[in-house]
């Protein structure tokens, strides 16, 4: 190993962890100083506008998942359920509710209470969630309602007129949001500041798309479910910041280096099974969940999570800095629409992803907590199986609630899935050998 390799490989995970800790430290300081914080959501975060007013961005979804990753979500869920929440509703909401009851106490520090909540309708649970803060804190809750795709791609096309009025609707609401933020902060909206934030988001988005694209390499250069989630955290928390943009530009350098040198997240990349992940990871056993796949040579080359939870960074869209507010409206509209499509009408995108990334299998992970993501996965699987020669695995658990996570059952299903993949690989190799005399050499090299 050269010094360069040691410096570069793994840098994204290391730096990402550090940036994340720093970010939480900043929130802890903000809580101590009673500084104003805006609660925003991952899908359609509108972080750009919030940053323009120098408010702290708090992502309750990230706070909640961190309690699961750090193995203490059960404490939070139990507290919320003691207050009447059903075991059958979103664990993120419950963990956050308990976090508020505990005065912001969080395994990564302390979370300041909201001064305002800003949301889109990308997830209906956002709307219910913000109503909780409204009741608890009597804060302003501002919704930017974004009309999504009306029907499955390919079945109907919205007229240009409809698209334009959707954009006008979103633009109008963003202007209303700006007024709310001016009132809250006592600051006049600074369009040049917004322009700068958007410029940084453009840099981050450019790099994010390149990172995703680089995983088409063989072997894959990162695991889109495991490492991809770390990158997603940074993409959301530091969206529209210089350090966020630099982080992703460095990440591109790392991934290009890995692609060039065939450096895989797997120990033995010759055994690589290329998979697409659909859904949200199993955070209560996050690392073990990853290992259940990686031990068999499974690597997630793509993940729908990196589409819908990246706030539209996966889209080939850049803000027009000449018209920042108008362009932000268009960006929010497109990103929320695509996030919706990635969950509601994802079969087409999945089929494209299978082709682009050369996937051998698709892993569906519907979860109790999230109906947006999970409702149609069983149905989607039928379509994918009919359209592509891949294996599909369908495993249910949760992103927060370890009571519905059975590692033994997951392992049984996952092992059987990989036995199927291995068997297919052998059959294909054998068929190739039989069909082409003298082809043994090429058949042993995936």
């Amino acid at each position, binding site marked *: 190993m050269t010094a360069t390799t040691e410096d570069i490989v793994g840098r994204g995970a290391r730096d990402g962890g550090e940036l994340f800790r720093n970010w939480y430290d900043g929130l802890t300081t903000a809580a101590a100083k009673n500084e104003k914080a805006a609660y925003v959501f991952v899908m359609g975060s509108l972080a750009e506008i919030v940053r323009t007013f120098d408010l702290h961005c708090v992502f309750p979804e990230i706070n909640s998942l961190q309690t699961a990753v750090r193995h203490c979500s059960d404490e939070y869920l139990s507290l919320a359920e003691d207050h009447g929440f059903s075991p059958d*509703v979103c664990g993120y909401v419950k963990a956050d509710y308990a976090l508020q009851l505990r005065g912001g106490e969080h395994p990564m520090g302390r979370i300041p209470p909201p001064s305002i909540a800003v949301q889109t309708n990308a997830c209906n649970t956002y709307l219910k969630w913000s109503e909780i803060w409204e009741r608890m804190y009597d804060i302003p809750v501002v919704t930017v309602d974004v*009309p*999504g795709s009306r029907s499955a791609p390919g079945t109907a096309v919205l007229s240009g007129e409809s698209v334009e*009025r959707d954009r006008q609707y979103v633009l109008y609401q963003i202007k209303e949001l700006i007024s709310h933020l001016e009132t809250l902060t006592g600051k006049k909206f600074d369009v040049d500041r917004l322009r700068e934030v958007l410029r940084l988001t453009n840099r981050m988005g450019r790099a994010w798309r390149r990172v995703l694209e680089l995983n088409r390499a063989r072997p894959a250069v990162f695991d889109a479910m495991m490492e991809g989630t770390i990158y997603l955290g940074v993409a959301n928390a530091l969206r529209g910041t210089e350090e966020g943009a630099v982080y992703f530009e460095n990440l591109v350098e790392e991934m290009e280096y890995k692609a060039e040198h065939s450096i895989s997240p797997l120990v033995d990349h010759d055994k690589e099974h290329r998979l697409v992940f659909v859904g949200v990871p199993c955070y209560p056993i996050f690392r073990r969940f990853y290992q259940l796949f990686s031990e068999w040579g499974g690597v997630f080359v793509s993940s729908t999570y990196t589409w819908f939870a990246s706030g539209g960074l996966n889209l080939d869209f850049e803000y027009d800095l000449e018209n920042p507010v108008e362009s932000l409206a268009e960006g929010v509209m497109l990103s929320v629409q695509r996030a919706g499509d990635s969950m509601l009408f994802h079969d087409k995108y999945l089929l494209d992803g299978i082709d682009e990334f050369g996937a051998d299998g698709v892993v569906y992970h519907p979860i109790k907590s999230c109906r947006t993501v999970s409702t149609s996965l069983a149905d989607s699987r039928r379509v994918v199986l009919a359209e592509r020669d891949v294996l599909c695995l369908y495993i249910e658990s949760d992103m927060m609630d370890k009571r519905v996570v059975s590692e033994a059952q997951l392992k049984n299903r996952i092992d059987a899935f990989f036995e199927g993949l291995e068997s297919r690989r052998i059959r294909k190799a054998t068929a190739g050998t039989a069909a082409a005399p003298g082809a043994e050499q090429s058949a042993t090299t995936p």
Partner: protein
Amino acid sequence: MSDAQRLPASDDFVRLMDLPFEGGLNEVLHECREILEDTDFPTVKKWREQGGKVMGHFQVYFPEELAHAAGILPVKIRGAPVDREIADSRFGSYMCSILRSSLEIAMTGRLEMDMFVTHPICDGARNLAGIWSRNRPEPAQILYLPQNPNSAFASTWLTQEYRRVLADLEAISGQVATDADLRASTEIFNKNRALLREVYQIKRETPWLLPIHEAYVLVALGGLVQREEHNELLEWVLPRIRERDARQQDKMRVVFEGGFCEQPPLDLLRAIAEFCYVVDDDLLIGLRWLLSDVPLEGDPVNSLAVAYLDDSSYSPVQHDLRKPKEKMLLARIRGAGAEAAIVSAAKMCEPGLDELVAYSQALDEAGTAYFVTEFEERMSSFDHLQIQLETFVENLLFN
């Protein structure tokens, strides 16, 4: 008024129910229940047999006037207590029943339609358009009813969105809906809303004349027939209900909350009626969403949009800063003169279950007694619920 007196024939609409008016009120109510509980949807079948087009709209609200004006029968899709042989395989485990049964009745041919519309009322329902389009030939789409009704631009946008949907409906029926048609439809629906308000007035003022399960049947039929026929039925039934020979009993006056989407079984409502007078509720609230007459002047589509936003009821699935749900519930309880509330949610209904927390806290603060329960459209045993409810009522009556 003679029970034997048949309604005057009308050529303006197609009668889809064959009700035994000659037999009197109870026979009519019985037949209404039979029609409502028939999971083969005979009224819709009859409409289609005559060449009519059908638009199925999932809960909670759809501006049915648009479909009516375009010559289409709008049918409220509210699930059904059917065995699910096909649809279950299209959904994950943690889903409510109404999503599954709504697809089941379509996939098994019980309810045929020419267009399906769902709404992003919850994270499950917004998935229906995708699932529908993968499994059904009829076009499926989402109508995005604004989740920011507080925006000054919402009515402008919604008006245009209604126009977009109207164009799709016209394409299905091949019939253009002029503004005059839309006003005529609105007038019919205004009459319907007035009659439904009368149903609820009877429930509030003389609940012993109209128990909740009977009122529910009368209201729900509106989602299965043309509104002209529904109006005709209500106009015939309501005076007779007022004349009923029923004595007031010492039952508690309660509000039932939680029936905005998935519907509780009729027998559950009947079980509640044994112990309580349900003086108000949110059952099928979409059919009663608009609170007063929609103006017949001006742009008829804009009038519908404005009414949806500004002159409407509430539900856990509409986010409107002007209508905090728990405060709306307290107002409903006060308005109906209720002594207690039954707050419920369908199993796995996330918005409903979330709201139970807020409702409970608000009712605690207000010192209003309440009974919490969950239901499922296919449940068939109510013994446990009855015992709990009886205990709840007795506790309040004797403490």
